[in-house]
């Protein structure tokens, strides 16, 4: 019995060694920020999945929200002689030196999800979403859905001063510009959290005639929308019908709400930033084709018509 076990583990070990040997043609280092949010955890899961699908040997380093850890990780990737480096930078500044080191070692660096304040020739490309565009997609959906009817909108902003809050507001307002039937009557910050989303929505409902004056809610992320939906229900109104709910991120829980008819639409901030990054990298390594400096990920709109329960099941296991 013991012998068989040993044999089995030896076989597995051999298989692993063989497997890594065959995939060793491409080794990629990934310096991730940490796991501060569900979305970030999902990004890590998907990056690992994508690497596995393509037979890439991914070296993963979790920086626990510290830039110095990321710089250390990049230096160790350079020392190991990886073929490429993926970097999700925790802050925008202070990368010039270490990126130059990578460049000198002729290792292409691809930025994921966020960009840096450094000369553009220091990295191969940046794969990010367009926050303004996300707000715009949400706004367009609302404009099309109300179809010319008058509609008062309340807005739950993200953390005051954060770039998603500023840009998602800008994009939404741009979509509503010139549409006189749609008016943003109240806008407050819900700090991207469920608790604050619920509390602020309660005050909106009180301030606008028990909610009778509100026709739609736009939340800068799904979590605030989930909180607000509870507030709307507790005020005796039907979210999704009496008050339309549109938000951004596409986390699993909002799909449950959509399946229950309580949320209407969400715009996806895809956690799959690695897929496009690996594609660009493969093309670059194959015939030296430089990708554009910015690869924009798709901001896909999901509505109740998109079988929300199915999407929920798909997303559930990603670590959101």
């Amino acid at each position: 019995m013991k012998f068989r076990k040993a044999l089995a583990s030896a076989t597995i070990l051999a298989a692993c060694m063989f497997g890594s040997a065959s995939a060793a043609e491409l080794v990629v280092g990934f310096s991730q920020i940490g796991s501060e949010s569900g979305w970030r955890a999902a990004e890590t899961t998907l990056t690992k999945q994508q690497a596995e699908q393509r037979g890439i040997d991914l070296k993963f380093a979790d920086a626990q929200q510290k830039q110095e850890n990321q710089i250390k990780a990049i230096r160790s990737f350079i020392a190991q002689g990886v073929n490429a480096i993926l970097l999700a930078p925790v802050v925008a500044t202070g990368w010039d030196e270490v990126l130059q080191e990578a460049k000198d070692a002729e290792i292409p660096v691809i930025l994921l999800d966020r960009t840096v304040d450094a000369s553009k020739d220091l990295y191969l490309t940046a794969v990010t979403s367009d926050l303004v565009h996300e707000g715009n997609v949400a706004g367009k959906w609302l404009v099309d859905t109300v179809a010319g009817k008058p509609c008062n909108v309340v807005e739950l902003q993200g953390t005051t001063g954060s770039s998603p809050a500023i840009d998602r507001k800008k994009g939404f307002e741009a979509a509503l510009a010139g549409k006189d039937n749609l008016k943003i009557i109240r806008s407050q910050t819900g700090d991207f959290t469920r608790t604050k989303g619920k509390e602020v929505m309660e005050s909106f409902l009180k301030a606008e005639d028990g909610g009778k004056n509100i026709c739609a809610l736009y939340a800068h992320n799904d979590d605030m929308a989930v909180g607000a939906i509870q507030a709307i229900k507790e005020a005796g109104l039907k979210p999704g019908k009496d008050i339309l709910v549109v938000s951004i991120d596409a986390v699993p829980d909002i799909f449950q709400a959509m399946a229950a008819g309580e949320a209407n639409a969400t715009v996806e901030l895809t956690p799959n930033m690695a897929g496009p990054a690996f594609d660009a990298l493969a093309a670059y390594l194959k015939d030296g084709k430089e990708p554009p400096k910015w690869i924009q990920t798709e901001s896909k709109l999901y509505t109740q018509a998109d079988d929300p329960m199915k999407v929920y099941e798909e997303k559930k296991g990603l670590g959101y």
Partner: protein
Amino acid sequence: MISIVRTYLTRLLPQLIALATIVAAVSIVFPGFLNLEIQNGRLYGSLIDILNRGAPVVLLAIGMTVVIATKGIDLSVGAVMAICGAVAASLITSGHSLGVTLLATLAVGVLCGVWNGILVAVLDIQPIIATLVLMVAGRGIAQLITEGAILTFNDAGLIFIGSGSFAGLPMPVVIWLLFGVLVALVVRRSALGMLIEAVGVNREASSLSGVLTPVLLIAAYVLSGLCAAIAGIIAAADIKGADANNAGLWLELDAILAVVVGGTSLLGGRFSIAASVLGAIIIQAINTGILLSGFPPEFNLIIKAAIIVFILVLQSPRFRTAFTFLSIPRAAGKPTEREAK
């Protein structure tokens, strides 16, 4: 009896004036502020929202008052809220009954309090450092329990604690009212309150005169942990999920602020639980008022800070002396508040 009421009123006067001023100011900006109606069998209105939304800070402030009275401080309450929310959510989703979940969660809160208490009372570590340990580690523990995600649940019983109602009042309000009265009675109807104050004023002298100081100190931190556990259950039940990253975030500061606004000195000694509860309600009244007034969110924190500074100035000894001095001509013959004490 009348004299007791009068003593209480004198003690609570600055807080009551502050609260009345804020309520009056908000109802000028937003006329519907004072409206109350019955909806779905419970009272509904902005005033009820204040009592309801203020529940976590009120509960934390109750425990914090007792800790501060012993010349301590508990920075870990926000993190303990997150831990307890996470424990409650994970127990209920793994199929345990409501009773087991609640008892286990409260026990975890008590355990956190025992940890803090031992660090402070037995190992003699300064309270601000001792509780900082759990403040930092606690959120990590909570994230371990929820595995970084928001753990949602659908148990009707647990949700009832967050958004149900009893006797026309939201459950969180009922809970903090009952708990507050209970703690105040236990502390004030026995010698406990005086012993706590004694420890806060001079720990060594209290020990020498036979007070079981370590036990009393540990008990104070246990109460704080218990309060944080209840607050954590309410916060999680309110959003039907445990959010380890954000539950109770920065609430330890709001709780300390509530105690200070309530007029209890951070140097320990005399304390009033009722005043701290009023302090917490004042803070929540400001928050709700700002949300209703429709100012752009960039102003939220500035408005809040300005009002707080105003209230603290009202309470400062210098200002009180000046005020007493100015009001002497009118109150001639009557003893001033200071002399009456």
